[in-house]
């Protein structure tokens, strides 16, 4: 027997989201978007509930979650940091910026700092190539970021 360990409140939230899409299997990706934006991430238990509500297999839900880079099963940091790895940013030194973040936060891409404050990820182009290299912290965009400027960025959140 598979048991799902989630608070009733969360289960109801997920159920409501599924219901708002008529519990339709074809709306899986929309449901996952909404659920992730509500709960922050998509842990296994959440996927189990979604699968049940949409009358599909958990394996299918997991298959979809792991296919799309936007979905995450790990909670992101309070301030998620995303480094744009679009070509424009790449040729203007995004890799060095990323290396500096890794060194400064002592985590690698896909990880969250022990205090839960920062997480690090790479993005495809955010379309702000004029500002390359670009870093996003939460919804805020930092343009023309240089490796020696990242301490300053992090200080905004400390």
């Amino acid at each position, binding site marked *: 027997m598979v048991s799902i360990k989630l608070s009733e409140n969360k289960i109801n939230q997920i159920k409501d989201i599924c219901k708002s899409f008529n519990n339709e299997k074809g709306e899986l990706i929309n449901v996952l978007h909404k659920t992730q934006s509500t709960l922050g991430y998509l842990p296994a238990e959440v996927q189990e509930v979604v699968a049940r509500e949409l009358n599909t297999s958990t394996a299918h839900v997991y298959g979809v979650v792991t296919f799309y880079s936007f979905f995450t099963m790990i909670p992101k940091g309070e301030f998620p940091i995303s480094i744009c790895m679009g070509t424009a940013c790449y040729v203007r030194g995004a890799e060095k910026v990323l290396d500096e973040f890794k060194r400064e936060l002592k985590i690698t891409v896909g990880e969250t700092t022990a205090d839960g404050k920062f997480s690090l990820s790479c993005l495809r182009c*955010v*379309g*702000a*190539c*004029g*500002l390359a290299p*670009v870093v996003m912290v939460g919804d805020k*965009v930092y*343009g023309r970021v240089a490796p020696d400027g990242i301490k300053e960025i992090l200080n905004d959140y400390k």
Partner: protein
Amino acid sequence: MSKVKSLEDLKKLREEMESKLVERNNSSNLVQIKVAMATCGIASGAKDLMEFLIDELDKRNIEAVVTQTGCMGYCYAEPTIEVTLPNKAPIVFGYVNLKKGDEIIEKYIKNNELVDGIIPVNYESIEK
């Protein structure tokens, strides 16, 4: 808002809107400003700039319409704004931070004196 029921309705609507714009352009003292508010613009501070311009023009008793618009294409020079003084051709300014915004109001809008950061429009639009 009533639905547009035919092509004739639509043509009337267009004329109405066009004449409003013409009216605006012919106004003797109305300053028109467009702020490029696409993602790069906003990321570079266009939102703050727009608020600043609205507040400051109001404070300084300059009759102006400040509207948002999409990408003008000058990503390297964001934020960018286009300023149209009464009876004059529009001018695009790039790298407009708040300080530059203030300068544009004081020098160009008030005094017709150009400031640095002008971007010549380098494209043709289709004739309407």
